[in-house]
């Protein structure tokens, strides 16, 4: 409560001073009489900064306009972003770097195509937080426009797989049953039968595909990130890829008619439940039966 008092008194003082001002003449008089006020210089500085900032915001070209405008500008922007965010490992021109010990610091990106950039940066795997067995999915660091710019730059280095056409990402056109067969034949070895993923050697793993965007699944198939092989369009046609994505989407949205899914993880989880819950509950019941009777 005491805090409100000074505020109210200050307000009343402002009210008094403003009540004495009338029209433009009074403003000019105010400026001239107060120009030597200790805060005058700061007020002028603030006013100038606001004007300059506002003008820049209004007049400067926006990035999105730029991307649509000219591809060469986009490549240039991509080159700049690449130089800042990627070149420390991949080299200024995406040629890759090998340090003195012979370890690959960053692989060459010549010929990996726009799809690889869109996948790696679009899922947050790149830029890498720290060297590890495998780059992990994490929050994305760039806007889609910036990713597109870097993708355009990398694609300009040499021809490579491009980001997929919308037509092949439209899962409503896919055949779920056929996609399931293709998935089991080509993908389930690592990603399990419904895409929950699984362990690979030395800390590498096939990630869970639940909730991954169709675009990124498609790009992973054509670029083969990390330990994943490349499934090019001759091996698995774009239509096949669409079927696979449709299957994944279908199976993820499928309800579990049997009850709790317990991770759809199969016998290990089921065994744990049988022992911990099933036998545990029954032993509890057995104890109960015995104690009740001994009291009776």
């Amino acid at each position, binding site marked *: 409560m005491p805090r409100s008092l000074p505020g109210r008194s200050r307000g009343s003082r402002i009210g008094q001073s403003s009540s004495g001002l009338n029209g433009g003449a009074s403003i000019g008089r105010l400026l001239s009489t107060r120009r030597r006020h200790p805060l005058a210089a700061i007020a002028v500085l603030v006013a100038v900064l606001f004007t300059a900032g506002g003008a820049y915001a209004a007049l400067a070209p926006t990035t999105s306009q730029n991307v649509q405008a000219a591809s060469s500008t986009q490549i240039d922007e991509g080159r700049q972003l690449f130089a800042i965010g990627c070149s420390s490992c991949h080299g200024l021109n995406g040629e890759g770097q090998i340090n003195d010990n012979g370890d690959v610091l960053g692989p060459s990106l010549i010929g990996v195509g726009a799809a690889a950039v869109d996948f790696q940066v679009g899922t947050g795997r790149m830029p890498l937080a720290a060297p590890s067995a495998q780059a992990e999915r994490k929050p994305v660091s760039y806007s889609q426009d910036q990713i597109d710019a870097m993708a355009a730059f990398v694609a300009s280095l040499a021809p490579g797989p491009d980001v997929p056409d919308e037509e092949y990402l439209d899962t409503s056109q896919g055949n779920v049953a056929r996609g399931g067969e293709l998935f089991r034949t080509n993908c389930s*070895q690592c990603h399990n039968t419904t895409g929950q993923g699984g*362990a690979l*050697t030395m800390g590498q793993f096939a990630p869970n595909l639940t909730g991954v965007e169709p675009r990124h699944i498609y790009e992973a198939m054509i670029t083969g990130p990390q330990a994943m092989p490349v499934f090019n369009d001759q091996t698995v046609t774009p239509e096949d890829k669409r079927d696979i994505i449709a299957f994944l989407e279908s199976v993820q949205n499928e309800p579990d008619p049997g009850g709790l899914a*317990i991770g759809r993880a199969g*016998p*290990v989880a*089921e065994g744990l439940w049988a022992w911990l819950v*099933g036998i545990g509950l029954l032993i509890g019941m057995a104890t109960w039966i015995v104690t009740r*009777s001994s009291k009776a």
Partner: protein
Amino acid sequence: MSAIVNGAGKVVDFVDQRITASNWLKRNIRKVFPDHWSFLLGEIALFSFIMILLSGVFLTLWFKPTMAHVVYEGAYVPMRDVGMSEAYASTLEISFEVRGGLLMRQVHHWGALIFLAAMSAHMLRVFFTGAFRKPREINWLIGVVLLVLGVAAGFTGYSLPDDLLSGTGLRIIEGGMLAIPIVGTYLSSFLFGGEYPGDDIIARLYPMHILLIPGLILALVTAHLMILWYQKHTHWGGPGKTNTNVAGAPFYPIYVAKAGGFQFIVMGVIVLLAATIQINPVWLWGPYDPSVVSAGTQPDWYVGFLDGALRVMPPWEFYIFDHPVTMSVLIPAILLPGIILTPLALYPWLEQKATGDTREHHLLDRPRNVPVRTGIGVAFIVFYILLWIAGGNDFFATILEIPVNWITWFIRIGIFVLPPLAFFATKRICLGLQRRDRDKVMHGRETGIVMVSPEGEFSELHAPLSQAQAYQLTWHERQLPSDPGPATDANGIPNPNYRSKRVQARLSRFYFGDVVQKPTREELESAHHDGHGAESAHRDELPSGQQ
């Protein structure tokens, strides 16, 4: 009403006058069974087996045990137009089209997991309490065979739906067979009717699963129960409970009601699991295709230890006359089950040999009172759990986010290091508990009341145990290692059996050498008379509630 009762009485009397069964009935209907929660583990197995039989009969009405190829046109849309075997298609039909079919499938599968878990728990109970000792060795042996049959029933059933997961399991079994030198390829060829997978195996597993194995289980369960009935149940010692009697409730009416009630509880828990938790969703695994092995492929828990052994076994193969001998499969898949089962089956005799104890035992051992046996049991459990973890190494690697190779190496080393450690630790814990029991009997229980004497000495008050409490801690027999006797008799004639007796004495010392003996009568009396004058003086001041 009374007319009906009279009529029934007349019928019973008619039968009884001709076959005179009432004496036999009277004797058996009043059979006494002791009460303890651990005695009900076998019942869990029995009741879940009944549940499996009932749900299994239901499933046979729709399941088609054939590998004939069909194109699926059923209700499960994501499998439409996919080629599969009729076995798999009919499993989908049971799951999605037969009313109550999915529930019955899940009852059958959860029931099987519970059945095997209950058998294992029952067997551990019998082991740790020494209930397998003479005269119950035969029932122990039947139990071991039942466990093996249970695993066989489970595995054949797991394979029947012909889905991707179970097909991979069969492939591993085939691999194990092929690893058997000389006859392996023939065995595999006989079982599968030629090359794997052929189109006979489902039709061959089916009669084993629904007829042969359940028939054998049923017969052996009957024998198991008849022997139990005849030999009477073991029980814990205590006031009025000795090696020559059985104390408990009569079969009729108390035990019938109790066991009957427990039967419904067991069935209720299984149905509850089946109704709320999805098990083996074969529609997600897909039909079997020999060219596909999916990640995350595991067997049901009771085969997990074998799969685990296969996973952690280092590669090892050599050639004899150009014939490969694949030790990396032969050891974990074929030799390991024998290495585990043989000592398990023979344990009652092995222990008898070691301890030289050939008397009958109807009183159970508290696990702490036989530290070495308890240690062996825990070491085996640790060994088994390590193989279990190995069987899910990929699963645990994903969950714990550690490299799968670490788990493999942890198991490879742990399987040799941890069981002996577990044996040692368990034995020490048992000895500590025994020492505590002995202290309680000699000096009474700790009251938590600390007294200061006029000299400034702190001491805790001990309250003596009641007669019954002290008896609970001392009813067990004194276990002394056997003595080989002198090598030569008084006349200097060497004892021809001395060598074997010395070996037996050494084994007996391994079993009983470190056991903390319960106090003797003299020890007890002197403990109660000497050095406790001050304490007993204080004891009189204790409020009666604390004594």
